[in-house]
């Protein structure tokens, strides 16, 4: 495969705005930073007490909550930093971090 063929799904130089300008505001949402993740948080709904500490501490807003209850993770943006698992009270222990390569078999929980 040539380097040309490999990158053909992206626009060519004639179709890009010049100067590296990005013309669309708020387009960062299109960049799924979750694909950087090495460690995946896995949520145990049975053990969760909905204290929302993980939701509060997540630096990426990737813990999803609705009506004061945790409903899971947004894996599109979760970078796997593990702060949620660290902040989850030890007695509760509702979030486990597992390696992405080992987790590939399992479906994502949200």
């Amino acid at each position, binding site marked *: 495969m040539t380097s040309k063929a490999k990158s053909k799904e992206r626009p060519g130089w004639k179709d890009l705005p*010049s100067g590296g*300008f990005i013309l669309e505001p708020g387009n960062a949402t299109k960049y799924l930073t979750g694909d950087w993740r090495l460690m995946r948080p896995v949520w145990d709904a049975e053990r969760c007490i909905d204290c929302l500490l993980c939701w509060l501490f997540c630096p990426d807003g990737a813990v999803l909550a609705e009506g004061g209850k945790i409903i899971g993770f947004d894996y599109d943006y979760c970078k796997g930093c593990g702060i949620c698992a660290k902040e989850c009270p030890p007695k509760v222990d509702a979030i486990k971090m597992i390696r992405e390569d080992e987790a590939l078999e399992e479906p994502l929980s949200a």
Partner: protein
Amino acid sequence: MAVAVALQKKVAMTGNEAVAQAMRQIEPDVVAAYPITPATDIVQYFSNFVANGQVKTEFVTTESEHSAMSACVGASAAGVRAMTATASNGLALMWEVLYIASGMRLPLVMTVVNRALSSPINIHCDHSDSMGARDAGWIQIYSENTQEAYDNVIQAIRIAQHPKVLLPVMVMLDGFIISHAMENLEILEDGDVKEFIGEYRPERYLLDADHPITIGALDLNDYYFEHKRQQVEGLLQARKVILEVAGDYQRVSGRSYGLFEAYRMEDAEAAIVVMSSTAGTVRTVVDAMRKEGHRIGLIKPRVFRPFPARDLAEVLRGVKAVAVMDRSESMSTAGGPLFTELRSAIYELEPRPLAADYIFGLGGRDIYPEDVCGIFQRLLAAKPGDICSDPMVTYLGVRE
């Protein structure tokens, strides 16, 4: 030469004063500058215009040339016309920002008063400063005299802002030889300059609140290459735009400009290629030796970036021998920057002319008509079929 349609004043000015007058007539929105010999006068005169209320320009005095160029980049990205001037080590200090200006496709215009680079420290003319910046993605235009410096600065505005180009332009004049020498020149009326450059209306700019954009974003292996290819396209398109702008300028001023000047080249068998003020010396020698029956000519490149390789090759077709005079040393040990590019440009000519390089005038060393005469005599003595010159590089005027 066509009859000038616009009224012009004949004035006596130094090169720097003429550039400052052009800037006054252009009236850029922002001028950010830091003084350095021999370019200081330009912004000093201009600061007087600001202080006297003759222009509405925002004049930013910065703490270094790096900051001056950065302020110009900021102003241009915000959506206004920005200009500056520098020389020598000042240009060197702008280095990384030069690439940012061209990569962001910002139509800045800067005058560079050519001066040797330190060390050893020297304030006089050679082209080491701007030649070092030749690959920075800027358009480079070299001026022979005060009139050309004035005319080039005004044309540079139109070239830079052309939607097919959108690149910064550097206009050069020789330090002291032109920057501080009083010459007669014709200057246009203020209104004619304003009309010629037109209103600046960038398509995309940072302060356009209705169309927010990001400038200067990270651009990695998946997009950077495409953006560099676009930049090359701007330079490719610039060739035609420079000629169009020159045509329009001739209609206003009566003065004609091209990518280079070919002087008495029609039947020339030997030619010298040289830029800037030394072209005047060579022209005098061409006239004198033509009177003695020698078929010789002069090529004076005006536009060095983009390099008009094919156009130069065409005008050198049939010439037996060509000497390039480089006012800078590339330290490649294979010739100066003008020589290596010119020789590459004529590689495909059949028969291929002999090409020799003369490095001259470093640090302001004077050049005399006798030196130029000696070059022509060597070229004329070349035998047909000679393509190698020995020595390939001559240091003209250096003490052995």
